[in-house]
């Protein structure tokens, strides 16, 4: 089993990511409620090394990685990704021209 760290830390980071993803009413989102319910349900166990608990924690860490990487990837995409070519209208506008309006279309 991979070394995962403290479940509480994972939970807090996960809820923070969900807050970023959801927006204003993040506490009502199904993901928020599901994560909290899942963590609470697996908290009490009589076994010392509960396999289900570790599996859930691994899932939580994986989901946290997903949310975090998607957010970072989107930020990088916004900053660095090209915007593509300009449209003919924009190109004409660069030198102060406007494209002619042809009601019947070209040709």
């Amino acid at each position: 089993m991979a070394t995962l760290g403290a479940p509480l830390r994972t939970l807090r980071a996960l809820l923070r990511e969900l807050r970023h993803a959801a927006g204003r009413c993040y506490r009502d989102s199904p993901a928020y409620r599901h994560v909290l319910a899942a963590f609470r349900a697996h908290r009490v166990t009589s076994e010392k090394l509960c396999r289900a608990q570790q599996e859930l924690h691994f899932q939580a860490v994986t989901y946290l990685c997903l949310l975090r990487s998607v957010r970072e990837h989107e930020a990088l995409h916004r900053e660095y990704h090209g915007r593509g070519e300009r449209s003919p209208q924009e190109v004409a506008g660069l030198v102060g021209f406007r494209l002619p309006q042809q009601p019947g279309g070209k040709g």
Partner: protein
Amino acid sequence: LPRPPPAAAGSCAVGPCGRRAYAPPAERKRFYQNVSISQGEGGFEINLDHRKLKTPQAKLFTVPSEALAIAVATEWDSQKDTIKFYTMHLTTLCNTALDNPTQRNKTQLIRAAVKFLETDTVCYRVEEPPALAELQKNEWDPVVAWAEKRYNVTIGSSTSILGPNIPASTKETFVSHLASYNMWALQGIEFIITQLKSLILSMSLIDRHITVEKAVLLSRLEEEYQIRRWGNVEWAHDYDLCELRARTAAGTLFVHLCSESSTVKHKLLQD
């Protein structure tokens, strides 16, 4: 020429006509307010306002696991003004599992997955520079050893251009192990293998032996070495790193959610 709809498109096909070759496709705006989940006959469905989400091939979007449905709903809900399909990895995976656009059956998927073992990243070693060879030995040998022990097989590694010589019994073992997963989970497994370029790292991840971050690091070991040597280029290296992490994490979560069945046993407290 009309452009084909993007891979994770929702209910309507997007097809702007008469666009130039290098202009970016017109982005779909977010056309829904609320995203919710409902349970139907085949499983859990996603509702965008009152409309039911459909796959690119216009099938009803149904997933077997509630947690997976919630995660997909969160993806749709986290889109702000425009819908960025390239960030919705779980949705894409579900669409692939539902539509099976490459039309492969279970045997073909398993064969494609095990075929990767012949060109597995962690088995391909360099001889120079010596620092990189050492790094590969220290980082990759433990994972190969773990896989050999866990599955009781021989894999080994190689510095030749032909790669390692994988015995047929090893391939058989992996084939029969992968056969124990259902079709959905197999789509996910094949996806992870394609991303990480390694069957061993993928199995190590699915068996929860390593985390996603560690698997991605091991997959990109040479790149990390070169980055440490020559410097990091944010718009290329970090971009690729985040994308690989996102896809691998989505694949792993997908596999686990599609192959688990959770039951809650309540023990009565005895006073």
